[in-house]
């Protein structure tokens, strides 16, 4: 039963992968751009899913890392450095800043941590908006070039899409491996019961810091790809609202489900972007989304991907109760 389900899952993944590979052939330029946009947010929210979903740290400052990644690449490229230096620099810088942000997390928990990270996001956003010499302020930075790989230009939307897809698959594989390693187990132990984890010898201090730092590095990579994708960055997409949206994407998809971010990013950024020009729908998308989040919390607090588990649990309990009543009847008949 379980093996069959695993086979089914692998087949579904292969099918989805194939669809992602050939999809650009059937899409116009804007469609390809939108797919790349989706992948960028999948990478970012994968990192947040590690911090929030697997390690249980309530972070409301993820867009700040996304922004740090984007600005790092943009500023380095404007200074004449290559994208291939900017990308690892963005990831590394975010990792370090993530480590530093992890320190308050050692002192405070849950809602205090949420506000501390939210405050961190406000601070970073203020720097992006006010330090014009570095970030261009509200005018932002424009004409960010797309890189070339082995002499192959990624300037067009289609080649860039394949590049982003490649990075997304690599990051997903890394996360998959990480979660199956002892580190992954330590993260979930930290989430489920930090005091028990500590008494079992998990160094909760290091793992809390690491969960922030690795999640932040994912956002840094995503931000770097984002800067080159949209080619113009300004402070707005990295404000607190964006962090809150990313948090909702993780929760809506299913925090702690590996594929949650794929679904969450689709609902959180791709759908509204796609519906942007539809009159009547565009203005009401966010109100409906907000209301849907409230209803989802009431009916399915573990996110959309918990639905199969929920149905399975319900069926199991129904079967168990049917078996019990049948057994009771048999007992009655035997008597």
């Amino acid at each position, binding site marked *: 039963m379980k093996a069959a389900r695993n086979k089914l899952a692998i087949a579904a993944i292969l099918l989805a992968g194939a669809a992602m590979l050939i999809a650009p052939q059937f899409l116009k330029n804007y469609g390809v751009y939108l797919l790349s946009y989706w992948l960028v947010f999948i990478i970012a929210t994968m990192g947040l899913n590690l911090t929030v979903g697997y390690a249980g740290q309530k972070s409301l400052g993820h867009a700040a890392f996304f922004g740090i990644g984007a600005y790092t690449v943009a500023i380095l490229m404007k200074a004449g450095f290559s994208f291939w230096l900017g990308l690892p620099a963005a990831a590394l810088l975010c990792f370090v800043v993530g480590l530093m942000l992890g320190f308050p997390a050692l002192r405070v928990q849950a809602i205090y941590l949420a506000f501390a990270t939210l405050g961190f996001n406000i*601070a970073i956003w203020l720097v992006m908006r*006010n330090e014009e010499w570095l970030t261009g302020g509200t005018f932002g930075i424009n004409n960010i070039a797309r890189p070339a790989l082995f002499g192959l230009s990624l300037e067009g939307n289609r080649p860039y899409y394949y590049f982003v897809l490649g990075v997304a698959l690599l990051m997903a594989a890394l996360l998959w491996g990480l979660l199956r390693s002892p580190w992954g187990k330590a993260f979930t132990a930290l989430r489920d019961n930090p005091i028990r984890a500590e008494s079992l010898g998990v160094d909760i201090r290091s793992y809390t810091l690491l969960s922030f730092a690795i999640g932040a590095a994912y956002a840094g990579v995503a931000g770097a790809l984002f800067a080159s994708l949209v080619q113009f960055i300004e402070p707005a997409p990295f404000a607190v609202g964006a962090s*809150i949206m990313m*948090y909702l994407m993780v929760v809506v998809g299913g925090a702690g489900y590996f594929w949650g971010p794929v679904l969450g990013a689709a609902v959180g950024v791709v759908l509204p972007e796609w519906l942007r020009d539809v009159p009547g729908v565009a*203005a009401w998308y966010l109100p409906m989304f*907000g209301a849907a989040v*409230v209803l989802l919390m009431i009916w399915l*607090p573990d996110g959309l991907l918990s639905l199969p588990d929920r149905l399975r649990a319900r069926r199991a309990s129904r079967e168990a109760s049917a078996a019990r009543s049948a057994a009771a009847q048999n007992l009655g008949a035997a008597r």
Partner: protein
Amino acid sequence: MADFLQLFFSGLATGSIYALAALGFTLLWQASGTINFAQGEFVMLPAFMLLGFMALGAPMLVSFVMTLLLAVLLLGWVFKRGVVDPLFKYGMMPIVVATIGLSIAMRNGVRAGYSAEAHPFPSLFADKLFNIAGVTVTLQDIGTFGLALVIVLATQAFLAKTVTGRAMQAVAQNTESASVLGINVPRMIFYTFAINAVLAVAAALLVTPTYLAKFDMGEGLGTKAFFAAIIGGFNNSRGALLGGLIVGVCENLAAAYISPAYKDAVALVIFMVVILFKPQGLLGKKVERKV
């Protein structure tokens, strides 16, 4: 010195509005463990309700009473029954996420359904300046501070002196013992939600004349109220007043003497210092972690 005092007084006025929102926030937390991320929108919505009633031709006082009733119904009763009650059993985070969703729905609902513009809002106080020993203060500032202070102190007196208020405090401190003592726990919790709605209407009435009614006015206000509540002490309702005033005054002084561009970071810096050195807040009591 005159400049300093002037900034100080107008900071007190802003701070007292933060205190109103922060007080509602801490009361909800104490009574029901609800962290309301939509607190800023709870202030924004009554402002638009009042404008709506006045647009229908109702006089100011009638509009105010109707707004108060509608706010208690929607932001008190419907919010409690529809959002908080079903989620209570899952713990804190689902309520946080649901109220985040609610804030997005309210903010963008007003934007899509009413208007994305900023609307002028009638002031309770005449446009008048006072000059006391070289310090100029507006009647708006004095009135705002005075009225907000009266409302906060009246709420505290209600909680400390009346039987109902003391029952509400008992529920906040220990729900089980309170119900053993024959206190109607669900009703007391509803009263808290109703008081929160009333405080939000009061804050809307005081803040909107200066900052105008706009769909996103709750965003900054809500965040400041959270910070103020935590700075003062999350489990102490006097803390909300202290935290609100500290944030309002420091913000105003920092904008004038340090940098107006970084004004919004002031609440944040104080908040960070407080949670790093005294996580329970300036007036809060320490809560030990449980296994």
